[in-house]
Every structure is written in C-alpha cells, then in structure tokens.
C-alpha cells in the first residue's frame, strides 16, 4: 500500500517518463524559486525538443539557461527573456521558437489549464501584437481578446515544505508561478527544501493541496541571486 506517500528519492524516479518533444511548465521568476535540481537532471538526461512554459529563461549558466546551452529547448513560452546571450543567439538564428505572453496572461493561462477552463477573455494585449489572430469580443463597451489555457506533460515546481501527501508551502516570493504550475501538469513533480510530517501543516495554511502533486523530491538549493541590491549603508 503506497497510499498517499508521494516522496521519491532519486531524480531518475522524479522525472521518469519525461520524453523528447514534451511540454514542461516550470515555476520560478528570474532565478527565484526555480526547481534547480530538476532542471540539472534534465540536462543530464539529454531530453530534447522540449517546449518550456516559464516566465523567464534563466541566465547563461543557471536555471533554464543550461538547457538552452545544450539545445534541449525547441520553444519558450515566456513573458521576459532578457539576460541571456545564448538565448539571443539561438533566437536570432531561428533555432529557438519564442512565444511572448504578457506575464499576467501567462499566469492566468496556466491557472486556467489546471482549473479546467479552456479559454478566457482579457483586455491585456488588445490592440497590440499579442492580439494577432485572436478573437475579440466586447463586454460593457470594452474590447477583450480570447486567450487559451496551457497544460503541460510535466510541471516542475519548487516549494519550501511538503508533507508526504504533497501538501505544499512556498517561501516568500519564491512562490511566484509555482502554485499555478503545480495544478497544470499531467505529472507534477515538486522539489522541496524540507519534507515535514503529515499533519504538521495547518490545513488553512497550505498553499497547494496535495491533490495536484504526483512526486516529491527533497533537495538543497544554490539560490543564486540575480540582482543583489542592498540598503545604502551596506
């Protein structure tokens, strides 16, 4: 009886079933709250032609940047993809496909994917290049565009604490896209700093209920800082 124990002890088990050409949703904002170990493992696995749905694409030698470098990513769906020279090279040469999506629309598309909502209307992007080819409809005399939801074959999530049943708590702004990513993967894999006893997380303080989570792996994190800014007197 496995019951609800979702803890795995190897990255091989955590990413079992990930194959070339799949769509992977990843939490994280810049380098904050990214599933560092899962990304590193995909590099080792050499899986290619991946579509990544992630707000950003890391830097040259950290985060999703390391998969770009190995040409494992075919397409990025992101809101902001600066800070990465290799990205620029592959994009300009046509090796990498990029679908730029407004940040709030991206967050809502992933939430909708997890919540069984295939599409929604938003005013964001109306009249801009983002609206090209999309349905327009008026509500209360304002124009909105129809945006379709996103789901993934896998979702990669970074959380702070998990219990064995997959209930998750995030730490500060490392939360960002992780809660939505957790809901929208056919297989959701979570990398956590700490695995706690089931029952020790208060039911109303859980950010992501375990029903969304398939596999949990404990790890430690480098937590590289992208822009170190300190108070003046420091």
């Amino acid at each position, binding site marked *: 009886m496995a019951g609800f124990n979702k803890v795995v002890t190897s990255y091989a088990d955590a990413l079992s079933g990930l194959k070339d050409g799949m769509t992977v949703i990843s939490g994280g*904002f*810049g*380098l*904050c*709250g990214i599933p560092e170990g899962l990304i590193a493992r995909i590099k080792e696995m050499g899986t290619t032609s991946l579509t990544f749905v992630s*707000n950003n694409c890391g830097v040259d030698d950290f985060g999703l940047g390391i998969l770009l470098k190995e040409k494992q990513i075919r397409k990025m769906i*992101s*809101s*902001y*993809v*600066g800070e990465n020279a290799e990205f*620029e090279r592959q*994009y*300009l040469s046509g090796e990498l496909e*990029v679908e*730029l999506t*407004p*940040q*709030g*629309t*991206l*967050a*809502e598309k*992933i*939430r909708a994917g997890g919540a069984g909502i295939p599409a929604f209307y*938003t*005013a*964001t*992007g*109306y*009249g*801009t*290049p*983002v609206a090209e080819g999309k349905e327009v409809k008026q509500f209360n005399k304002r124009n909105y565009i129809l945006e379709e939801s996103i789901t993934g074959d896998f979702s990669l999530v970074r959380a702070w604490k998990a219990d064995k049943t997959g209930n998750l708590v995030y*730490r*500060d*702004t*490392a*939360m*960002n*896209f*992780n*809660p*939505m990513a957790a809901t929208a993967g056919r297989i959701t894999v979570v990398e956590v700093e700490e695995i706690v006893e089931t029952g020790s997380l208060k039911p109303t303080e859980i*950010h992501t209920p375990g029903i969304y989570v398939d596999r949990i792996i404990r790890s430690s994190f480098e*937590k*590289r*800082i*992208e*822009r*170190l*800014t*300190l*108070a*003046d*007197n*420091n």
Partner: protein
Amino acid sequence: MSLSREQIAMRVAQELKDGYYVNLGIGIPTLVANYVPKNIEVMLQSENGLLGMGPYPTREQLDPDMINAGKETVTAISGASIFSSAESFAMIRGGHVDLTVLGAFEVDQNGNIASYMIPGKLVKGMGGAMDLVAGAQNIVVTMTHADKHGKSKLLANCSLPLTGVDCINKIVTDLAVLDIKNGAFHLLERAPGVSVNEIVSRTEGKLVISDNVPEMKFV
C-alpha cells in the same frame, strides 16, 4: 532647464494619495518610492507577488527568496502580503491597484503607449507591462520628452508596436506634465525655466495649451 531623473520622480510622487496601492516600474518609476510625501502612506505592489514592498535589505536581512519584479533583493514592510503570480495579476487586471507608474518609448495623443519592443532590436518581452496598462485605474508615464536626437516621444500616432491602446492619461517628462484627453495632449505644467515654446517644439502630437501654464512646484 529640463528635469533630472530624480526631479521627474519627485514630481510623480505628488500624484500619490494617502492609502494608495502603487505599482512602480523599473527605472525612473522606482525612484518615486524615495519621494513619498511625509504626511501620507502608500503601499507598493510588486507584480512577482508582493504587496507592501520595503527598502533594499541590509546584509543581515538579505534573502534570495525575497525579490521584486526587477529581480532585485528587497524586504517586506509590516502589513505585507505575499501571493502567487495569478493572484498578483488578478489585483492588477481587476483594477485594484490605484496607480501604476511606468516608462515608455512613445505615447500618442490617443493614449496609446509603446514601451516594450523596438523592431530590429532583440525582443526581450513585455513582462507585466501589458497587464499593468490594461488593468490600472490610473497610469502615469515617465519619460524624456524627446530622444537624444531631439525627436519627440509624444506623437500623433505611436510608430512602435503598442503595449496598450487608449490607456494613458498622464505623462510626466523632463519638460512638462501633460494630460491626454479627447485626442490631444493638454499641457498642465512646465519644468522650471522651460518655455512653452520649447515644449511645443518637442511635441509632435496635437498639443492644447491654456493661457497660463504654471511651472512645476517642488516642496
């Protein structure tokens, strides 16, 4: 004389009201936080999922899990809340943020804004800018009135790809404060020592000028 970046930020700060929730973009808008009038309180929203953003951390407070939308390390003030990106943009899209301050490449007399993409240059993405201009109740654009070649950024029609349509109604530049309404820029204030004629010469779009255009005041 045209305003410095700090002076633009100081003038924008006069738009803040007590109890406002405010989103400040990267660049000059970030500086606005330094000039909040002493007699009011505002709360800063950072679209990566933080309401109640505080100052940069000391070495002791430094935490890689606490950043703002510019990916800078920050702190949270008392009363702050932290939430997901979906919740953050529910606030923004739903019109709950009282004021957004952001930069732009161009604004036109119909309230359109271009701020994220210059064709021919690498496209880095719009981040949250399209959501912010579509969702905020109130937007102030900060920018220089003209580019370094003297070409106006206040146009009849934006030439660059748009970030949003018909959404901007206030601009603070290094030369002037302007409203946008009824298909025209309306000159409200000029920078100290800057003539109406200079502003006219730097504004390509339709410009409405009243008989008396006061100089900006800084306390």
